[in-house]
């Protein structure tokens, strides 16, 4: 419970101050909770909300072991840093309600801890706001470890906004659903290799721009169902072809027009990328004007049908839908099992002095 002491340290002064003022006028009325029979004690604790149970569990080893007996599993635990460092989670019986532990330092220390609620349409969010006392990264890690232990739950999603989270997650929970790594968190090839080898990301792997040695390459597949990689110079053709990804979005890729043609050809033959639903690659072709033809020249494509029923969106999950460009007349590749792959967009844009080309390819079937 050492870390609680640190968390509490920011609360102690104002709380003691408040209590000492209270105690002069009226002694606090007390209730020896831990002397209750165990069944009754648990019923009392079950009447607390989940943030209160967390606070209770942090009071001592004994309260922690009591809280662990509450049959409550948390869902969708995710660590993020949209502004403040935050830990989010849900309860299975309250899908429209999010619970958040938020660390900030924008108020006077006497304000902490604070409880807040907010309504956003049909969804509600309950916040426990704690003081960011300068050691917030460790506080977040320890709080997550504590929550996962007490509620027998797993982290489902992490936004890595500090490099130290990488070794921590490898040690604490190396298999995880969603990982997004913020810009420039990875600063070395060693760290990059460590992530690729030691973290198994099952659903979503997102990597924002990074500055590492441009010679670094990988031929190993990236295992997640959905990958979105900025600065994807290190992702090679074998890495893509040997993967089982459903959705691939690569930006600043070093793949060539020939590589992209190979990917589409292998997909059409049915030998690779059997799970592919959507592919988007941004690359810098040697010859912009001929890149389109270079991609298509070895492919067995058919002309589009205006009313072919191709999808207008690609659904990643409940909260994330990609809208596809519809103004472009696609070319279709048809696989032997009837699946259709449509090149729904290909175009170039200037980014400074570099002209980048982007190709979007969606897989669908007339039955769907």
């Amino acid at each position, binding site marked *: 419970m050492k870390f609680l002491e640190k968390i509490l340290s920011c609360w102690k002064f104002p709380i003691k101050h408040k209590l000492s003022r209270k105690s002069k006028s009226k002694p606090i009325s007390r209730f020896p909770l831990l002397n209750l029979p165990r069944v009754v004690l648990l019923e009392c604790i079950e009447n607390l909300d989940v943030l209160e149970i967390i606070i*209770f569990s942090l009071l001592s080893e004994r309260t922690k072991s009591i809280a662990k007996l509450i049959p409550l599993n948390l869902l969708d635990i995710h660590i993020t840093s949209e502004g403040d460092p935050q830990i989010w989670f849900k309860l299975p019986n309250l899908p429209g309600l999010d619970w958040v532990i938020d660390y900030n330092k924008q108020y006077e220390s006497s304000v902490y801890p604070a409880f807040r609620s907010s309504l956003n349409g049909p969804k509600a969010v309950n916040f426990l706001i704690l003081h960011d006392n300068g050691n917030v990264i460790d506080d977040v890690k320890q709080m997550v470890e504590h929550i996962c232990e007490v509620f027998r739950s797993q982290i489902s999603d992490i936004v890595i906004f500090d490099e130290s989270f990488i070794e921590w997650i490898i040690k604490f929970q190396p298999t995880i659903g969603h990982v997004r790594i913020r810009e420039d968190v990875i600063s070395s090839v060693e760290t990059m290799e460590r992530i690729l080898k030691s973290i198994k990301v099952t659903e979503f792997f997102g990597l924002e721009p990074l500055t590492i040695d441009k010679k670094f390459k990988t031929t190993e597949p990236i295992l997640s169902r959905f990958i979105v990689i900025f600065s994807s110079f290190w992702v090679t053709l074998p890495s893509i072809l040997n993967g089982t990804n459903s959705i691939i979005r690569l930006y600043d890729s070093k793949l060539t027009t020939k590589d992209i043609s190979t990917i589409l050809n292998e997909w059409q033959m049915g030998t690779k990328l059997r799970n592919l639903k959507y592919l988007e690659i941004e690359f810098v072709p040697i010859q912009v004007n001929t890149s389109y033809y270079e991609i298509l020249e070895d492919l067995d494509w058919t002309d589009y049908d205006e009313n072919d029923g191709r999808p207008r969106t690609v659904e990643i999950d409940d909260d994330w839908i990609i809208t596809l460009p519809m103004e472009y007349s696609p070319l279709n590749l048809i696989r032997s099992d009837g699946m259709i792959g449509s090149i729904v967009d290909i175009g170039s844009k200037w980014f400074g002095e570099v002209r980048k080309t982007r190709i979007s390819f969606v897989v669908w079937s007339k039955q769907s």
Partner: protein
Amino acid sequence: MSSTEQGTSSAAPAEPTTAPESAAAPEVPESFYYVHGKDKVVHKVSAGALQHSALIHGMISNLGYTEEQAKANPFPFENIDGDILQMVVDWCNQHKGKPTPPEDTNLPKQKEKLFDLVLAVNYLEIKELLTYCCKQVAMMVKGKSPEEIREIWMIPTDAEDEAAEKEAKKRAGKEAAGETAAAAGDAK
């Protein structure tokens, strides 16, 4: 509210003042039972009100007392303070034959009393009242800081727990040593 009378368990109890039956309801003779707490004050309670208590209801069902036998043999609950038993009896009477509301605002506000009430209600197995009590206990710490919760619920720190455990071990060791010495003395 049941009326009560000071005295021993054999003292004649006063008549209850339970809510009268509806005029439209058929007249069914109601049986009454008698309970007393630590203070020996006997409370006369209808079987209907006592149905809230699984413990007493089980006792009644097993005993098959007549009115006279019940009067002569009040159920003794020596582990429950008189005022707490009074609260329980009042609650049972107020909620006799009625659906229990989601909240109960009549529970004691003093935390010490609530603690005794929770223990009594748990012992008497009055499920609905226990549920209210547990909600009330949880409400005590609504919006409170960790240190306030620790204070209100008298939760020791790890260091205090460790010290208490050491002390308990030490005491148990001394008691065991004392018993061994006494046994050795007896053997001589």
